[in-house]
């Protein structure tokens, strides 16, 4: 997996406002104005967060010149969740080897 893309994804997700924007976008696409409404934040403030999300590939903007609606891009999030599964599977595999080793040690000790 491309770790620089993951870095950008995690950096983008580190901010609560950006996570809230993503949560809103899971309900469907929205304009900057619609996204700004629930936050006590100016449209330029929201736009700044959107640029971070866009750079991380988490959000794309529509071509409609007037509205330029934002939509969620699922791929980087899916990669990130896959990574989490990777972490878990990594230790599961390692610990299964430990199970086998412990069984051999028990046999050797005659317990």
């Amino acid at each position, binding site marked *: 997996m491309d770790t620089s893309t993951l870095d950008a994804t995690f950096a983008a997700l580190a901010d609560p406002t950006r*996570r809230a924007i993503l949560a809103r976008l899971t309900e469907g696409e929205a304009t900057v104005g619609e996204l700004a409404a629930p936050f006590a934040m100016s449209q330029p403030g929201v736009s700044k967060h959107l640029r971070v999300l866009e750079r991380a590939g988490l959000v794309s903007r529509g071509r409609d010149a007037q509205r330029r609606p934002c939509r969620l891009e*699922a791929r980087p999030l899916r990669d990130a969740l896959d990574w989490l599964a990777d972490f878990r599977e990594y230790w599961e595999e390692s610990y299964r*080897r430990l199970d086998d080793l*412990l069984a051999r040690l028990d046999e050797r000790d005659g317990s």
Partner: protein
Amino acid sequence: MTARPPPGAGLVVAAPSDTEIVLARTFAASRRTVFDAFTRPDLLRQWHGARGWHLVVCEIDLRPGGAWRFVSRGPGGAELGHGGAYIEVDAPARLVQSEIYDGWDEGEARVTTVFDERDGRTAVTTTVRYPTREIRDGMLRSPMRRGLGEAFDRLDSLLHHHVRSTAPWKGHRP
């Protein structure tokens, strides 16, 4: 013959606070045996690692203040080293050690491992505490490193129903 848990069963991975990661698992062996498996290089080399990663350096000076160092080699010959010092050694019940990955001094973690035996089985709970939440989340950046961000706890539930589907995102609820 000792009853053994099904393969991979019961591994718990959790983020109990902003700066911690916990890994818990029960093993079908005595606490002494499990403690040895976590602290003797000849035994660690036989199990530590997965996905083609294995230990090529494993040095342990098991006493308070004693140093430890692991180097793992992975697919394609990639190597990742980490090490630190033991802070508490209470065999076979408890270990506290520092952990630093090579080239990432600011990420120094404190790792506490507790071995708890009950009915011949041993529960191992490893708690890794990082200096800050940002550093903990930063551990997500390497496939060999440990990490679990709060962002993921939230996102996992948020996205579980939305992103798991293989269909391209269409901006609607399923």
